[in-house]
């Protein structure tokens, strides 16, 4: 299995440019997730890799082969579509074996292979059924099975779980994660759901307006987002953003804003010197607050009980703040509570470029 590299990839639809100069490397056997809001170009990128969409400029290298001008069938890949794209007139077995039959594989080999895959996906009982006679989850599994029976080098997934209900989605997500551990192949997965991205990906590529905002492991994206967009996109509930001004107070860098002053750790002093006296954007994840004395006093406006955790909506100055707390003691709306913020839970962003400081 070769690595995949996108080099200076470009896509225009007529005069409209949707992807410009996209560069991305995916290591051998890596599970890469392309994630971003709708219209960010993630599906277009995947479809260009698949060969379903023509490439306006740049190269798609699979190993040392430039496949950007090849037919889909010459690229050695399998794909799972958002609407499953099953062949309505073929039963499950025929659907799964279509590629093998086209490749003129011998009949008994095809049968063994289909049965094998069907067994791992719990589809053995449905091999004779047409897609219309299956439930959504079963169709989804047939689509997976159709990709799996082929020993393709690369697997592409185009939002494969978005048509399922929440429970089934969770279940299929787990199955997918297990599958990707079992067969170590190149996998490229497109989703708009950051939870799916975080749980499945070895590497996550966050896209916006046809550009890569950041690529890295889930931890990297969560711990050190490269810009405000990634910070706001990754993590649930989403990060709180506040306006603040940096000042040096007796050798400690303080972020001061409407109703708060947070000391920043000394380790960041060097990097922040240049921004002293300037306005910046401050980001704190809801989980970055800890309840305790000597912190910021904030009233509880709303409490959303989720289970082990509760999300409190509170107010700091004029701005609404989400805070995640353990649901131990009952929380009354209207009461005032005290929260501290650790300096290393604070993310700082340049207000102009939105890049992390």
């Amino acid at each position: 299995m070769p690595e995949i590299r996108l080099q200076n990839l470009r896509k225009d639809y007529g005069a409209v440019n949707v992807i410009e100069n996209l560069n991305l490397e995916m290591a051998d056997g890596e599970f890469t997730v392309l994630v971003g809001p709708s219209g960010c170009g993630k599906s277009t990128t995947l479809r260009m890799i698949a060969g379903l969409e023509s490439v306006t400029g740049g190269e798609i290298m699979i190993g040392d082969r430039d496949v950007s001008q090849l037919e889909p069938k010459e690229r050695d890949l399998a794909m799972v579509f958002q609407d499953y794209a099953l062949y309505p007139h073929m039963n499950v077995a025929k659907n799964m074996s279509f590629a093998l039959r086209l490749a003129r594989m011998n009949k008994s080999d095809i049968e063994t292979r289909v049965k094998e895959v069907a067994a791992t996906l719990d589809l053995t009982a449905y091999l004779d059924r047409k897609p219309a006679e299956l439930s959504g989850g079963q169709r989804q599994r047939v689509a997976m099975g159709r990709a799996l029976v082929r020993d393709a080098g690369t697997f592409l997934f185009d939002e494969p779980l978005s048509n399922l209900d929440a429970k089934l989605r969770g279940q299929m997500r787990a199955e997918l994660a297990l599958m990707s551990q079992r067969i170590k192949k190149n996998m490229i997965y497109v989703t708009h759901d950051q939870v799916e991205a975080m749980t499945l990906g070895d590497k996550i590529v966050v896209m916006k307006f046809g550009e890569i905002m950041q690529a890295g492991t889930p931890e990297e994206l969560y711990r050190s987002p490269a810009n405000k967009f990634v910070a706001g996109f990754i993590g649930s509930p989403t990060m709180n953003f506040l306006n603040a001004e940096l000042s040096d107070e007796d050798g400690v860098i303080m972020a001061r804003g409407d109703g708060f002053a947070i000391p920043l750790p000394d380790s960041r002093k060097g990097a922040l010197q240049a921004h002293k006296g300037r306005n910046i954007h401050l980001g704190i994840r809801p989980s970055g607050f800890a309840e305790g004395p000597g912190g910021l006093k904030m009233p509880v406006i709303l409490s959303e009980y989720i289970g082990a955790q509760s999300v409190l909506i509170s107010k700091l100055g004029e701005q609404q703040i989400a805070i995640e707390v353990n649901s131990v003691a009952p929380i009354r709306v209207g009461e005032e509570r005290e929260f501290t913020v650790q300096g290393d839970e604070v993310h700082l962003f340049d207000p102009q470029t939105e890049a992390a400081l």
Partner: protein
Amino acid sequence: MSIASTNRMTPYLFLAPAGLVLAFALFYPICYMIYASFLDWNPSQRIGEADFVGLRNYFKLFGDPAFRESLGVTLKFAAVVVTVEMFLGVGLALLLDRNIRGMSVLRTLFILPMMIAPIVVGLMWRYMYHPTVGIFNKTLKSWGFDGVPWLSDGDWAFASVVIADVWQWTPFIFILSLAALQSLPQSAIEASKIDGATGWQQIIYIKLPLMLPVLIVTLLLRLIDSFKVLEVILVMTNGGPGLSTEILSLRINRTASEFRELGEAAAMSNLLLIVLLILTFTMFIYNKAQDARAARLRRVEEEA
């Protein structure tokens, strides 16, 4: 009258005018024709003066070699034109189902022949087939070949009317096939590309099977229509030379107007009607079966 029964009556009340028109314009002439087929009836007689002869007209038909030949020509004509038109129409649709510049103009051009009145089509082709001044023979002669007896030789005349019909009605199959093609699930076709299907394999294994329900209905519609064709052939050959292009509707026309045998013509019309009814019912039953299957699948889906 109670409100409930008035309510029940309302829909029928609204349907009554249409029902009346239908009864007068459709059922009355059909019953008239069925009754006439049992009579020995000459156009100079009023219908009441004609003798009742029972099934004699029908028996006479089966013994009549001219009628049998005409029936044969009709069946041959229908089979040939529908086969050729299906191949050409579906083929063109598969060829033109793509987004390239000028395709919409081309598509409109292709369906033009269908919009021309059949009489005009007949006249047009008759002039083109003309042995001396027609464009075909003139072109052939300018290339140094002999002219072809387009309408004066039996086999050529049959081929000529087939060509004219194919020219006029291939567009019908083309537009229905194109509509079917464009409503196919795009992702299934894309999936087949990923699965390694070539253009031909996509057509044979995915597109044609998925288009099949539309193709069957199209075929039956065209078959019904081709049994009733009259004007084009009437203008081009009037059934000749000999009986080589005398399809049934032409034979009926001649029996009534030339041979003045209204009873026999009515009997022929009834036979044609029966053939068409069988075809129509086949289509109806096919549609019903499709609907029933769709309903069953929906139920399965809801239960799942």
